[in-house]
């Protein structure tokens, strides 16, 4: 432990703590701009200068390690003068006229720091040099005129996301924030994760969707889990007057630490599918608007006793909805098929393994954040489950090795130290060969190389995707677990949608066959049905669809009920590594619309069914592939 004195307070901290961290831990305030808790200290802006006894000059507290006996002062006149001077220099460098800036009055850290220091004016006026604005990106505008050269965005792009798109060109006052080798951001290697927008302290990178829509003082926050995939990132949905404004990552979230991908941050606000706001019932061949009671009666009549009934739900829905759905259709109506749109492809083979051995065999996502070798099986973490991909990509420059095994185009493979060819359907033989290479160092060159890398690893992780889970047979999964045991490797299965694992725990993972059903009940929520599903249901005589949006499937259905979309409902989600997390309602439910849960209860009532509502027990009836815990 290290003992130091800051502003007269005796403080004890761990070795390696910076003076800034020590001051913050003691509840003292030191202003910062280039510093960000998620990034490596940089010492660029010089706003956090403090006086250290015995030091010749003021010291930047963000990069200064605390040492024994150190005496630090954070608010002497010398320090306060230096702060104001630093702010004056920053304001003088470029165009920081607040009156025509998007982030002015609350959302700008530079302006807030100036307010804190009581700056009523600038001692130095700017040099009036304009720079070009880069508005080539669909979601972001990059404006060097507003940049204070703190390089938070550059560090976030590299250190946190592992994408290394943003960088600086030139030096000193000529420094320009650029993408790749100075190409327009919209044509660069940017993956639109938006971390740079979220981390920018000024208006240098602004979000097009929310620009001028509402400031921090005018918006409401709704913090909950993202429902776009099974990673389970925490996100903050910002609304104003019941309108979606923006989505941000939650910096304090233990899993994603503020990171989101384009699917979680930008794309939900681009949804322009036609919304359904009233029940529809087919009469004389065409769908006509109906009242809820009539639509529910039509469903009760059409489903009858549930013979030949296929019930299919979206894995984007909360567990509460899925458990109720299972209770109504599997337990009460004994439908012929009760499954999800995913059909268990991302989970069934693995869940079977856990059940057979009565033991979980997968590890949590933290293992992927701190590993020296990653073996990826039939999974492209650049396109899917992107935030899990960030965890891997950002370690590759620190010596972590990546082995990618896939049979089709895989963007992650571009960054791999070793690529292995894994044809779909050959998972079993592939893993046997790998296992043999690990055990005896014999076999094809690629396997021997991979085995060498894996055996040399201290904390290897094997991560696999939906394609692997869908293609692998029992033997393949068995071999996978044996490999992980002999390597002492962690296994991470990424699964599918947000509630893919919950559906698996509820046993909703049977395949859908084409037609052949007498009736179908499709609980889509806000999921877009696939063309394949539309075809599979083409000849089913009676189809009920619960959907937030109109689609070809709802157009063909016999009864359509309008339900809530993701932002209008709350509920629980079980992510890929077994964390139970809450999604939080951010928008009011439109008039005439119900949640899928409320709709199911109405239908149960009409069918005189008393469904089970204790989902917590229902999801623990099977041995999970990874331990389930409240997050």
């Amino acid at each position, binding site marked *: 432990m290290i003992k130091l004195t800051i502003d007269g307070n005796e403080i004890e901290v761990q070795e390696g703590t910076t003076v800034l961290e020590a001051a913050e831990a003691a509840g003292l305030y030191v202003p910062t701009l280039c510093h960000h808790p998620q990034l490596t200290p940089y010492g660029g802006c010089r706003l956090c200068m403090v006086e250290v006894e015995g030091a010749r000059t003021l010291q930047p507290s963000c990069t200064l390690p605390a040492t024994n006996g150190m005496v630090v002062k954070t608010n002497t006149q010398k320090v306060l003068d230096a702060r104001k001077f630093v702010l004056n220099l920053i304001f003088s460098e470029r*165009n920081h*006229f*607040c*009156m*025509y800036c998007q982030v*002015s*009055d609350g959302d700008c850290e530079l*302006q807030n720091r*100036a*307010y804190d220091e*009581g700056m*009523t*004016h*600038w001692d130095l*006026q700017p040099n*009036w*040099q*304009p720079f070009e604005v880069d508005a080539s990106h669909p979601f972001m505008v990059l404006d060097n005129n507003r940049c204070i050269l703190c390089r938070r965005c550059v560090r976030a792009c590299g250190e946190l996301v592992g994408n290394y798109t943003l960088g600086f060109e030139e030096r000193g006052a000529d420094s320009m924030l650029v993408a790749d080798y100075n190409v327009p951001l919209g044509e660069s290697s940017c993956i639109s994760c938006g971390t740079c927008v979220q981390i920018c302290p000024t208006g240098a990178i602004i979000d097009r969707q929310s620009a001028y829509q509402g400031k921090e003082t005018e918006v409401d926050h709704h913090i909950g889990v993202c429902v776009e995939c099974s990673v389970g990132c925490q996100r903050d949905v910002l609304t104003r007057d019941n309108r979606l404004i923006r989505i941000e990552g939650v910096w304090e979230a233990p899993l994603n630490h503020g990171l989101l991908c384009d699917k979680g941050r930008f794309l939900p606000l681009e949804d322009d599918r036609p919304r359904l706001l009233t029940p529809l019932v087919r009469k004389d061949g065409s769908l006509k608007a109906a009242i809820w009671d009539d639509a529910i009666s039509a469903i009760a009549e059409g489903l009858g006793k549930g013979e030949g009934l296929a019930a299919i739900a979206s894995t984007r829905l909360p567990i509460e909805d899925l458990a109720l759905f299972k209770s109504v259709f599997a337990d009460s109506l004994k439908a012929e098929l009760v499954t999800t749109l995913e059909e268990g492809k991302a989970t069934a083979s693995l869940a079977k393994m856990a059940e057979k051995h009565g033991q979980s065999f997968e590890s949590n996502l933290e293992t992927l954040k701190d590993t020296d070798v990653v073996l990826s099986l039939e999974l492209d973490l650049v396109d899917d489950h992107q935030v899990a991909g960030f965890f891997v990509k950002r370690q590759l420059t620190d010596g972590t090795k990546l082995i990618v095994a896939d049979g089709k185009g895989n963007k992650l493979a571009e960054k791999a130290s070793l690529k292995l060819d894994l044809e779909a359907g050959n998972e079993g033989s592939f893993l046997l060969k790998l296992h043999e290479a690990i055990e005896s160092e014999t076999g094809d060159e690629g396997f021997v190389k991979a085995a060498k890398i894996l055996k040399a690893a201290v904390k290897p992780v094997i991560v696999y995707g939906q394609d692997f889970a869908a293609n692998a047979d029992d033997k393949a999964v068995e071999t996978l677990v044996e490999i992980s045991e002999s390597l002492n490797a962690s296994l991470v299965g990424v699964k599918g949608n947000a509630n893919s694992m919950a559906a698996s725990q509820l046993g909703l993972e049977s395949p859908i066959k084409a037609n052949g059903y007498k009736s179908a009940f499709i609980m889509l929520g806000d999921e877009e049905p696939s063309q394949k599903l539309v075809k599979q249901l083409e000849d089913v005589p009676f189809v009920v669809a619960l959907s937030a949006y109109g689609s070809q499937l709802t157009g063909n259905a016999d009864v359509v009920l309008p339900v809530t979309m993701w932002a209008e409902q709350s509920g629980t989600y079980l992510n890929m590594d077994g964390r139970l997390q809450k999604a939080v309602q951010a928008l009011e439910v439109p008039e005439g619309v119900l949640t899928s849960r409320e709709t199911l209860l109405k239908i149960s009532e009409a069918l005189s069914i008393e469904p089970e509502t204790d989902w917590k027990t229902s999801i623990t009836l099977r041995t999970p592939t990874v331990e389930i815990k409240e997050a």
Partner: protein
Amino acid sequence: MSKPKVASDWLCGCAGCHMSLLDIDERILQVVELVDLRATPITDLKEPDEDGVTVGILEGGINNTYNEEVAKKMRERCKILVALGDCAVFGGVPAMRNFFGAEAALQRAYVEAESNDENVKIPSSPELAEMTRVRAVHEVVPVDLFIPGCPPDADVIFYALVELAQGRIPEIKNENLHWH
């Protein structure tokens, strides 16, 4: 003791700060009880008293030789000079033209603007003041008190006037400090 004299004028601004001053509504009666309101753009007297005023208030930045003259005269004739609003304090919205130059701004306004016909020309007359870079007031004459805001809130203006009237220099900070 006689009441302190207050004079004001506007330079390269939009008159919004003076509108915000009027937004103090009936409280202007309290102000008039405390101070002797002299030359302002909204009273008949057009120049600050030759024998001086206590407080001089300037709205707007300085964008030509005429503004310079007004600012210098106000500075000479007042004890405390107040820069009122973002244009007076920083240069404000008119200062956007500094990034392109006065020529480009004239060209855009008098020649290229969509509403102009073919017979347009940039005005030129020896009687017109000469355009300069848009400057904050303190780049031309020393300023004693800065009240930023676009415009500053009526409440902030009222607070500042009452303090000044009673011989104190108001502190513009916390909720009274906004640049916009």
